[in-house]
């Protein structure tokens, strides 16, 4: 159809001469894009873990810092019990045929041993 062909020549002419944005506009748009661009994820190699020392190996073998903390607490408590004057246990004690002053848990143990006659 001739009229259809004529219309196609109009379209072809318009496609051949498309409206184009200015270089200044493209530069502005690119600048805006760079300003809004997400920060790049740095592509640096991860730092390898350092080698284990002797202390670290021992610590790991007993279960790490939490276990070491528990051991230290128990040790301190034992030391305190051994060195302090356990007032609750002190006093003059009669036990069977023995008697004497009881100053602390160590005396109590000694007394028990004596009682058993070991």
């Amino acid at each position: 159809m001739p009229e259809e062909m004529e219309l196609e020549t109009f379209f072809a002419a318009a496609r051949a001469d498309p409206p184009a944005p200015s270089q200044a506009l493209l530069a502005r748009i690119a600048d805006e894009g760079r300003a809004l661009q997400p920060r790049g994820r740095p592509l640096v190699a991860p730092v390898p873990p350092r080698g284990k020392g002797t202390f670290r190996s021992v610590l790991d073998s007993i279960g790490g810092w939490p276990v070491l903390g528990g051991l230290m607490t128990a040790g301190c408590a034992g030391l305190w019990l051994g060195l302090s004057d356990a007032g609750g246990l002190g006093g003059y004690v009669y036990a069977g045929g023995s008697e004497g002053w009881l100053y602390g848990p160590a005396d109590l143990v000694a007394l028990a041993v004596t009682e058993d006659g070991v």
Partner: protein
Amino acid sequence: MPDLPAHGAMNEGRGSRVQSAAGRKAREGAGEAASDEVLLALYGAGDPAAARSLADRLAPLAFRVAQRMLGDAAEAEDIAQEAMLRLWRAAPGWQPGGARVSTWLYRVAVNLATDRLRRRRTGPLDEAGEVADGRPGAVSALIEADRAQALGAALMCLPERQRQAVVLRHLEGLANPEIAEIMDVGVEAVESLTARGRRALQAALSGRRDELGYEEG
């Protein structure tokens, strides 16, 4: 942009160089035809060259369609800038395998242009009357000597949806399914709009045949 600490800046610089090299490699690997989606992914990953590449490739598309729908270069510039701004913001969350970037941008540009056209229609009544009154007259007044300009003027006389369909189909060269996606209608509706638009353009341009170099007969 917030200032970066020196260490971060150093990492950023090194990362950017690595990414730029990766971007070049990706572009070279894909030849000149690195897809818009690849460029957008590079942009999202911080490739400093991707913003300019995307602007050069996609902003003209938004500008063209806006200019052809509105017939106003200044408004088309605003729309191209706004459409690209939306693309920059959408880039970090862009889902690969979804809509094509160009289809998405066409849709944004067409919608922005439609908003402008509607705002024009809500302007003073005498302005609206000028367009409504004299479709042939308006065409006569606007038509320049060459056919591209005559077509541009005739397009301005088409109803909004017909104009969109004709611009996307015959000037941007898109397929009907893509136009349907952009305009959010069915393919049949696109065909109908395009056919009616073509008939209206023929009617508007037929009176200019002699001036535009067509002989009778």
